[in-house]
């Protein structure tokens, strides 16, 4: 086993060169390069974290904008509905007024027509009285031969008609 057989002869050079190499690795790599690599990793992690935070903020902003949009939409819809309701109410009012006017006109026409009807009825009634009186006078003359004046016949017809 050379490791034991040569030990006395080689341990000094082994330890010397090992110390040189280990010191080289320790100071150049361990203390020089490794912290820089670690710093790069930390830097990257920080960048990623910052980017994620920025993305999160942007998302929150977008959410807020959408919320705002929705609220605006809702408000516009509400105002539109109010406008519609107002217009409807106005239209209804106008309709009512027109209806009332038309009703008034119709009532007037109706009243005139009724007046005309009443007039013509009374005229007709008067002419019926005249005809009835003539007929009565004639009937009396034929039945009894008595001559009845037109005025007396009209008088008694009027009395009878009033009793009807």
């Amino acid at each position, binding site marked *: *086993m*050379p*490791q034991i057989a*040569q*030990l*006395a*002869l*080689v*341990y*000094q*050079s*082994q*330890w*010397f*060169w*090992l*110390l*040189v*190499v*280990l010191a*080289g*690795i*320790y100071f*150049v*790599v*361990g*203390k020089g*390069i*490794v912290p*820089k*690599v*670690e710093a*790069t*990793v930390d*830097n*990257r992690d920080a*960048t990623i974290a910052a980017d994620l935070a920025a993305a999160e903020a942007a998302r929150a902003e977008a959410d807020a904008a959408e919320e705002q949009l929705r609220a605006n939409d809702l408000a516009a819809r509400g105002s539109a509905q109010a406008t519609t309701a107002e217009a409807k109410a106005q239209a209804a009012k106008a309709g009512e007024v027109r209806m009332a006017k038309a009703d008034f006109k119709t009532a007037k026409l109706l009243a005139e027509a009724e007046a005309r009807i009443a007039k013509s009825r009374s005229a007709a009634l008067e002419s019926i009285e005249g005809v009835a009186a003539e007929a009565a006078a004639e009937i009396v003359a034929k039945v009894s031969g008595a001559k009845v004046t037109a005025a007396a016949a009209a008088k008694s017809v009027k009395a009878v008609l009033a009793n009807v």
Partner: protein
Amino acid sequence: MAGEAKIDPMHQFLITPIGSDTLAASPFQFTNSSLWMLIVFAAILAFMWGGMKRQIVPGRWQVAVEGMTGFLDNITRTSIGAEGRRYLPWVFTAFTFILFSNWIGAMPFGIVPGAHPFTVTSQFSVTMFMSVLSFAIVLGVGFWKHGLHFFSLFVPAGAPLPVKLFVAPIEFVSFMVRPFSLGLRPFIAMFAGHVLLDVFGNFVVQGLNAGGPLGYAISALCFVAVIGVNALELLVGAIQAYVFALLTALYINDAVNLH
């Protein structure tokens, strides 16, 4: 080794001098082991350098580098807590050095003429040195942060006195054994794995040399075995690096937080 097919699985662990003929017992003696340590260092530097583009949207290489640092950062953070980042450089150093040594040692550099692959972590002089360093960090942090109160680490809190008297020596021994177990683990894994690879590889060649149906069958079988052991070796290499880093972090946690 040439000519006669002699199985010598230990040859791969031999440390040979580079630039001189004989090994000198000197710290500055450059050997194949030193060379492969420097190659490991260069590979780690190249790997980490490739991940230094520092882009917000990383490429594949950068993801690999960031994955490794993140993995080790996670180990220190979960094991030690918020203070763990202070100990990340050492945990990172230990992990990458063991991982790259194990994996580079398992690469088939032997097919390149003149190249002699060498696994740095198959030398317990290397792994023990690293575990002792980890242990020294644990002791240093423990005594610096808690003073002599650090010894309360060996006493189970809330236990009755007889239990404390009984358990404290056991805890102390288990604590003192830590550097050995920590250093032996990666060494044994690499040592055994490479011996196995060498033995099976030799069987492949010897089977072919012997010829005949039996020889070819053994050769084919051993070839499959070599592939399997190689795959296992890569897995074990990563696991050992992970275990070393994790245990180092856990031991440092003991020193930082005292239970």
